[in-house]
């Protein structure tokens, strides 16, 4: 396994040999990974590899039975999920999980639940609307009445409303039309460069994810089988064959 740590700095997120379970099902078999401040890191792997489980474990929705997770050097793997937002972790979860019977704007406000800076919240809402004009058009509508793609935008906008240091994105391009997929990746890059947000990105669309990511990890059956820079993984034979769908 190739390791490419970023010049001796301490990582923002350090995941150390975590094992997560669903009841008796052993889903993660010792995952270790690092995300450094300001990076986009991507996690790729086929269905059932454990990508979402990794995200859920980092965000405290699940707790690892073994192993540890550190944010800025402090252990967070035993903290309840709701406390992690205050530590700067927010996410757009798998399956969107927007609040269907709250309006679009109320969903965004829930994303900023812990913040008290009203004027800044309002500015961030405008900011989300600028990125996703569709949300602005539908701001009074129940979120459950949005199309799948619009809900995906809302889930991402809602996560941004927390102004996280670390943004976890689980398949943000899911269900989007191809032109919107390009746009979403563009937005992810912008959030990263303009707001300095560190991003851990899970994607089915391995090609685009590796293109914008500084580094990537490849997951298979609950273990990391490969890790390298995004560019190097794009050139990797195994990655090309299995995840980029190249023949021969």
């Amino acid at each position, binding site marked *: 396994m190739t390791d490419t740590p970023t010049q001796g700095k301490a990582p923002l997120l350090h995941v150390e040999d975590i094992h997560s379970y669903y009841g008796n099902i052993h889903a993660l078999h010792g995952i270790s990974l690092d995300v450094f401040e300001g990076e986009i890191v991507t996690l790729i792997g086929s269905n059932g590899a454990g990508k979402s489980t990794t995200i859920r474990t980092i965000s405290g929705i699940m707790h690892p039975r073994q192993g540890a997770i550190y944010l800025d050097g402090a252990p967070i793997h035993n903290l309840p*999920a*709701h406390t992690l937002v205050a530590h700067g972790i927010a996410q757009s979860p798998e399956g969107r999980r927007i*609040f*269907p019977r709250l309006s679009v704007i109320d969903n965004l406000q829930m994303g900023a639940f812990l913040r008290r800076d009203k004027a800044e919240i309002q500015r961030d809402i405008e900011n989300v609307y600028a990125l996703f004009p569709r949300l602005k058009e539908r701001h009074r509508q129940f979120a459950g009445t949005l199309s799948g793609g619009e809900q995906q935008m809302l889930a991402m906008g809602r996560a941004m409303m927390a102004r996280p240091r670390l943004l976890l994105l689980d398949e943000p391009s899911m269900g989007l039309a191809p032109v919107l997929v390009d746009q979403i990746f563009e937005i992810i890059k912008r959030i990263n460069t303009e707001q300095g947000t560190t991003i851990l990105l899970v994607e089915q669309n391995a090609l685009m994810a590796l293109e914008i990511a500084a580094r990537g990890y490849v997951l298979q059956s609950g273990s990391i089988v490969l890790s390298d820079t995004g560019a190097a993984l794009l050139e990797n034979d195994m990655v090309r064959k299995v995840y980029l769908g190249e023949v021969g």
Partner: protein
Amino acid sequence: MDPQLEAFLRQVLVGLSIGCYLALIALGYTMVYGIVELINFAHGDLFTFGFFISLTIWGLFDVPTPLEGAWILALPAIAIVVILLSGGLNVVIERVAYRPLRGASKLAPLITAVGMSFMLEAIFAYIWGANQINYPRFIPTTNFLNDFSRIIRFTPRDILLFGVTIPAMIGLTLFIDRTRLGKAMRAAAQDREAAAMMGINVNRIIAITFFIGGGLAGVAGMVYGLYTGSGRFIMGFEFGLFAFTAAVLGGIGNIRGAVLGAFIIGMVQAMSDLYIGGEWSRVIIFSLLILMLVFRPSGILGSTTSVEKV
């Protein structure tokens, strides 16, 4: 006036007044169901608790009957204490009896709630006695409509009842619709895990929900005492069932539905008392419950759970 019409109008007022207490109880039922999907069978007993505890508090003072002068101010003061105590009791019940069972099968907390109800009733009977208990007649029953009709009654007690319950319903609706905390309650009811991802402490939201539900039921019990002048340790059981029926009728988990359901039940009871006979009222109300569960389980306004959790 036509005596038929007079009797009808009287029953309309009776129906509205029954609807008022039922609404306060049904709101707690439906809020708790909305967020933890528990039919809290012990909820009606908080109503009884409000009745008894307010009686005990009145007993600490030498209060003139009927209330006069500055003693009128004791009403809101004691109501607030009753809300705090019944809300607090409901929070404790949730903490010790239901929270440890979260994540267990749904049947476990349901059975626990039934057990909790029996336990509370036994404790009430032990402390306050098992007989019908009289509540002091603090509020006079002079009929404002005397010159107009002797049958249709609207008294200071009605003013108290409507004056407490209607602002409570409106206040609760506004709180849940408009405030940050109210929105967080709805968010947690719709998706607990996603709410936690927003930084919402779901356990605290659940505790607040039980507090509000218990407080409303408790103050309803106090108002009931002031209104009817008597009550018994077991009465919460029946009121709880009626309120549950109201919540199901309106759409369980739905705040406006609970209020609507309560007024429908109140009206059905008042009208069946007049036209069919009081002994049939329960039969009619519970038949309504069964019909609703069979033909439209999501209730009149739609329940919050059937819509998105399919």
